């Protein structure tokens, strides 16, 4: 559905994004991770048609996004600091969006406003930051976009509200196959929400993974053998290994049952198959570059 291929974008002399290609399937929730200045926001703005790429193409359903009103109508973008027309109330803002997005669902809007107990006749800029963000969500979801693009959406929301918002997103995705792109500088914030994770660093994409695959595919094993080490690792996909005394610690890829069965054949003295946290998986997956982006994983 969303296809970004070989996109490059620079701001005057500064290279913001270098040759990035991303593919997002319909109905998936795609997390874009990276530290500040990694180029996440730039990528999202390219996808929203705010910026235009220097090279490459940004398409949704095979059509260019930039200056394409019929495609942009399917997209709703919430900025990192939600912004509304000056002095507008939630209600006025809703009318504004209603006139612009043909998919606008006013019943849904009233429903959502009621759920969040939002005073729609109050000027938005008088709300606290958290409530403003809620308002942005309500307006966004009422527009019934096919693609929802969220830049750092969890900032400034308390845990209860986060849960509420996440549930709303998941429901919407489940109900009508909405595609969601979320940027974040913190993996934990989005790991329970996303099914794809991509990590950006200094304008490059370092990794793009299906989270379900990742969680079931990557394991940590600790093994020790009597005597010399048999050549068990030759036929396993190893991401990392280190030796502590006679114990060998490895991060391996593969299906848990198969690994278990395979290692057992060599009759180890000690053998544990341990679950890995998502952070650990990413750090091992990324190898050396992993250290540079460690802060976003913790």
């Amino acid at each position, binding site marked *: 559905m969303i296809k970004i291929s070989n996109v490059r974008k620079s701001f005057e002399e500064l290279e913001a994004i270098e040759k990035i290609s991303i593919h997002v399937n319909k109905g998936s929730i795609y997390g874009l991770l990276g530290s500040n200045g990694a180029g996440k926001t730039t990528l999202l703005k390219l996808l929203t048609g705010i910026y235009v790429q220097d090279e490459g193409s940004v398409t949704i359903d095979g059509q260019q996004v930039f*200056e394409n009103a019929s495609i942009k109508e399917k*997209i709703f973008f919430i900025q990192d600091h939600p912004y509304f027309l000056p002095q507008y109330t939630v209600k006025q803002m809703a009318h*504004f969006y209603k006139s612009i997005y043909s998919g606008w669902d006013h019943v849904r809007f009233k429903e959502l406003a009621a759920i969040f107990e939002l005073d729609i006749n109050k000027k938005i800029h008088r709300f606290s930051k958290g409530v403003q963000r809620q308002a942005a969500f309500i307006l966004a979801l009422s527009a019934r976009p096919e693609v929802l693009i969220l830049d750092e959406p969890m900032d400034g929301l308390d845990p209860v509200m986060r849960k509420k918002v996440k549930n709303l997103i998941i429901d919407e995705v489940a109900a009508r196959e909405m595609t969601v792109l979320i940027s974040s500088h913190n993996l934990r914030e989005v790991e329970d929400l996303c099914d794809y994770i991509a990590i950006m660093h200094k304008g490059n994409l370092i990794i793009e993974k299906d989270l379900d695959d990742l969680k079931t595919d990557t394991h940590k094993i600790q093994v020790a053998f009597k005597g010399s080490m048999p050549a068990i690792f030759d036929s396993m996909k190893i991401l990392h290994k280190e030796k502590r005394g006679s114990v060998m610690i490895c991060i391996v890829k593969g299906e848990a049952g198969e690994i278990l069965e395979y290692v057992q054949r060599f009759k180890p003295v000690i053998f544990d198959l341990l679950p890995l946290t998502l952070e650990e998986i990413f750090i091992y997956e990324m190898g050396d570059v992993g250290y540079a982006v460690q802060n976003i994983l913790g």
Partner: protein
Amino acid sequence: MQSKISLVNKEIGKTIARSVGWVSIVYFLVLFFAVPLEIIMTSSAEQRKFIDIDNLFQYHFQLQIILNIAIPVVMSVFLFRFLQVKQYSDLIHSLPVKRESIFHQYAIAGFFLLVLPVFLISIIVLILYQPLYLNEFYSLGEIFKWLGITILYNAFIYFAGVFVGMVTGLSAVQGTLTYILLLLPVGLIILLAFNLPFYVYGYPSQYYLESKFEKFSPLVSITQMSHRSLLATEIIIYLILLFSLYWLSLWIYRKRKLEAVSQALVFPITKPIFKYGAAFCSMLLGGMYFGEMRNGMGWLIAGYVFGALLGFVIAEMVLQKSWRVSIHIKGLVIYTAAMAVLFILFQFDLTQYEKNIPAANEIERVHFSESFYLYSDADQDEPIYLKDYANIDLVRRLHKEIVGNKDMNKLQSNNQNTAFIVYELKNGEKLVRNYRIDKSKYHPFYKLIFESAEYKMATNEIYNVAADETTKITITPSGPVNKQAVITDPEDITATVEILTEEVDSAAYDDSQIQVEPYAYIEIFYSDNKKAYMHWDPSYIKFEKWLKEKSLLDKARVTGNDISYALAAKAADIDIDYARGYSYEEIFEEMNENPLTLKITDKDQIESSIKNAKGFIDGDYIIAFYFDEQRSIDIKSFNEKDVPDFLKRQFE
């Protein structure tokens, strides 16, 4: 899927009205105060007597100008706030609306909100027209003219603001740059006109500055609307520019990169243009200031260097949005090199501007005078022109001589005289030159031209006088005396006119160059209330003799009999404070107290002093005359060479 957004979206319209509606309201209210309210308040019969108004601009004209200049820019700045605030820009541009559509809606809606108050005011005035008998002041057409001109200026300034808004990413810069853009044509003309004479020898800057250049800026020409209306060509040019600005703005907007919001200039290519443009203009300004001070080449160059640096640094400050800027030395070096090349190019006179002197057979007629103002502010309908081949050739040869002495003339900073030449060619073109020279170096030319019959005919009114139609001649002495010689006898009149004509005929150029105060001012009243006016120069001896014969001399000029005594002193001995200002009484007092002062009471000596004294007190000797009857003082001076012998001897 077809977009729901058609050309006009009601909600976008509402947004526009909510953000800039106040501008419209303010405009309406102030304009209402300025025009209809003024009309109503001055409508009583008593007040109407004092109203001198023949168009709508004349009601609170200054206020109208301020509105006309400020409101459109305020409108364009607030209307396009969404371009200059990052989050606002992101919000608007993430919407499924094409930029083209956004632009049309905003720009046109802004325009309507801008002109709506003007329309309403016009309607109000139309309603008041009949009941308040405004037809006594101006016709109905004036209301429509006011409406049209006001809208035209509003629209032009507004769309200039819109255009600048597309180029810049800061609202403050948008406002400032709009005014700079609108003033630029006039500003550049002034700056170039003042600077070119330093490089192009003979460039007549005043001539070009006077030639209605104010039309080139709407901000300047609008200030003339109370007393002139727009020419058709001006209207057409404004309309063309207006539409060009509209489409250019749209074109630029579509190319605008939104990430550059909050930068002073959005398009990288405009930054060097702005930077070097600012350096260039400010360099010319520095050159203009220090060049006009005429302190020599060193100051001029210093002015250029200082001006260019200042402009460069200020431009950098704007671009970097900080006063602590790092200066790119490389850019400055390139700029300096470019200016040096420009300077050298001027030295080659590539267009042959300096050497271009038309051939005598190409010239229809020529104006030659000592100042541009004798050309522009001529008393007659037309300045003095010479058509005689001999004179044309003389002016040409003088011109050639001046150009030949270019280097010498340029070096002398104390050149006091101006030679202003306008050739009107047979092909309809004009060639205008202005030189600062020391005219004593070109004495033969001046003598021949100014003593030529044609020149005298053109410059002396006496030649227009027909003696038989003359009814009266008055001769009023210069000086603090209350007397006048009047000639009414027809025979005397004929004789006087004859003698004066003769005197003018034979007047030598050299005599006209001595700064001696004329003896008297002569007015000749002839035919239907016409009046010829001339000076009685002390060199008109025949005339003096004739007056003496007729016993009119005593009345015709100041004589020794009017003066009881005179005080004379060397200028060096008298302390005159020119800077602070001085009064004749003070000087007289000081001379009186000064022991070196000479008191003259001999009538003959006084008489000879009157003859040679010049009107200014900047000579080597000061002489103060005491007029007995009027109890007043007149102070004059002598140059070393004009001092009467008796005084010279005394002081030696």
